């Protein structure tokens, strides 16, 4: 065949990307999830317009007010408006948790696929290290990180990402072990493709599904973890509004002032559910077989 110098064919053609978008749009549940999450995020961004209260200013005279027109979701133990705190808290809780989990999932996916693909010593070293991370009490790790890096929200995020990594590593690795033996990976090997490209192009896309599922489920957990770290002085310091903290302080009041822990819980549920819907949707879209 004669050779022509021509522009190289684009690897990620426009068609493919628009196909993904098309599929995402057609997936109703994904859209439901996206809308719920979008509303929460928008509400968080425009919180000052939506509520007349300041999330941090206390109003002792109005503590433990039940839901009413003035306070939709009631007030807390120092009289702050819970609705307001939920909206402002979304910025912190949801944002931090999602970023932490995304970091953990991406790093975990990379480490896990590499570990599973190469096997041998690399695998042993990586996996035993993961065993170690898993075996640590999260609290010790967080406290130590706080001490070493200094307490800040970013560090809380790093701490959470760090302790969450091993799960993703193990998940990605388990899939990789099977994929490594599949003929299409083997055939890529026979072409002489660089192992990292094989991992990136063949292993990762095919092992990402359980990672996505786990990731969307982990966000709720991460929000609660942020709260735990907050209590230990790592992470958001009071009075910053934060869902996890609202829930873990508020739960003691469940029997008397049910609205206090319940509404933050409800928002946690809504966001976790929305993320999960989106996660399932993304899984579907990435699977070329489910074309509708």
């Amino acid at each position: 065949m004669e050779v022509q110098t021509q522009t190289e064919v684009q690897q990620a053609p426009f068609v493919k990307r628009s196909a993904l978008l098309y599929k995402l749009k057609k997936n109703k549940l994904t859209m439901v999830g996206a809308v719920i999450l979008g509303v929460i995020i928008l509400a968080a961004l425009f919180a000052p317009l939506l509520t007349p209260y300041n999330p941090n200013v206390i109003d002792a005279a109005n503590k433990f007010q039940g839901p009413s027109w003035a306070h939709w979701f009631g007030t807390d133990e120092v009289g702050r408006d819970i609705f307001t705190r939920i909206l402002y808290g979304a910025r912190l809780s949801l944002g931090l948790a999602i970023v932490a989990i995304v970091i953990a999932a991406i790093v975990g996916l990379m480490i896990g696929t590499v570990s599973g693909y190469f096997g041998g010593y690399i695998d042993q070293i990586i996996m035993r290290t993961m065993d170690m991370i898993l075996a640590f009490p999260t609290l010790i790790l967080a406290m130590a990180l706080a001490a070493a890096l200094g307490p800040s929200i970013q560090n809380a995020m790093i701490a959470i990402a760090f302790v969450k990594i091993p799960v993703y590593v193990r998940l990605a690795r388990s899939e990789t072990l099977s994929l490594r033996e599949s003929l299409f990976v083997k055939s890529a090997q026979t072409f002489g493709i660089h192992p990292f490209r094989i991992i990136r192009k063949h292993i990762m896309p095919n092992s990402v599904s359980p990672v996505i599922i786990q990731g969307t489920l982990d966000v709720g957990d991460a929000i609660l973890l942020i709260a735990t770290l907050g209590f230990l002085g790592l992470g958001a310091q009071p009075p910053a509004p934060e869902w996890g903290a609202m829930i873990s302080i508020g739960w003691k009041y469940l029997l008397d002032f049910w609205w206090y822990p319940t509404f933050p819980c409800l928002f946690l549920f809504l966001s976790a559910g929305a993320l999960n819907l989106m996660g399932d949707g993304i899984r579907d879209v990435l699977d070329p077989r489910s074309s509708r």
Partner: protein
Amino acid sequence: PSDDKGDGTETADGQGGEKEILTVAMTADQGTLDPAVTMDNSAWKITYPAYERLVEYDGESTEVKPGVAKDWNVSDDGKKWTFTLNEGHKFSDGTELNAEAVKASFERTLAIENGPAEVYSVISEINVESDYVVSFELGENFPPFLSTLAANYGGIVNPKVLEHEKDGDLGQNYLATNTMGSGSYELTEWKQGEYIKLSINKEAKVQPSIPEVYFRIVADGATQRMQLEKGEIDIAEGIPTEQIESVKSMEQVELLQKPSLLVDYVYVNSSKGNEALKNPKVRQALSYGIDYESMINVVHQGYATPMRGPVPDGLWGHNPASFQYELDINKAKSLLEEAGAKDLTLTLLYSDNKTWWETEALTIQANLKEIGVDVKLNKVAYATSREMMEKGEFDLSLGVWSPDFGDPYMFMNYWYDSENLGLAGNRAFYQNEEVDKLLRQAATSNDQEEREALYYEIQDIVIEEAPYILLFQKDFVLPVSHSVKGFVYNPMLEGIYNLAEMTKQ
């Protein structure tokens, strides 16, 4: 075994209704129970009824009455205390409690060199004068000595404890989970994390009326509440003040409310913190900046009493005429202005050790904002907060304090003596030579009236200097079932039950 029919209310671990059993719900399990080791007030509720002391607190007062010792006297220089013992007190295995046993017990405590040994470090020698007379030689005059003997670590341990000695631990390991005393009760079963069971000590001089007492661990306040309502427990220790209202409406439950000696205060770091805090005017301004009334309402739903001077109401040495700061924003502002402290930003250290601290911190933050002081909350892990307190790495810090023995020494000398900087007690890092001098004088006099006068004098000074913001005295609030009678609250023995005198119907 109880019946397991599953027919509703009574099937749950129901022994609350039974006459022979008293059930107390406590929020956490105990650590070691060795009186020579533990400094933890909550362990006392188990050990206090299991051991006897030379002297005991008298009813509701913080004064002492005879215990094992029927009388005592002190030498003029205050350095020699001699006790004459009652005969017939026996340990649970029948061993007699005599002067030898008292000597052995205290020597053991001193040898173990733990917290309690420090309290008794003034003791230089213990002598058995006769079978029932024992004397203590002190290294220096220490008037509160008598009071310390009524505390938990004054509990007299059976000398046979040494039979359980392992690796030279003087029986510490054994006593950690067992009792060997002459009190009315002895520990008969301890299921870690679940409950501790006390049964009557057959050899005890006073035979109580309730045969078995269970201390159940129910960490969750709401659960305690439900259990109390169902009569499954008789006394609920762990119901937070926010939930107390609902207990009031329970028919079969009585709510005890007494002022306690637990003081809630803010350390204002007077020498190691923010420069501005070195100026007494700034500290006064802070004290003027707090809305005490609303603080009590917000933080404890009103279950607390405002302070008057550092010595709490209920302890001798308390001066009802002391000055107490009140909210006065203008005054505070002008004081700050005088001191030239503008745009003051202070950190407020606290941890999650006390559940109400968060609310308290928020309230202080809001209050001080009114007088133009910016407060940055710094919440850390408890252990970290202790280290920071020891080192003085804070501007303001939340804290609570309660006395180990019934003497104003517990407040005055600990809080204000510059020898005790840091965790030891002077957590405001307050240094005043005159105060030091007066404090030491008060600590070495044996004349209570003279001491009281000295403490009054010192109180006036330190109230003026304001190294601590004195917030309130927390009330002791305890829901007790109507079926339980005879409980007497002694502020020195908070969380401890006079089980020997209590009855159940």
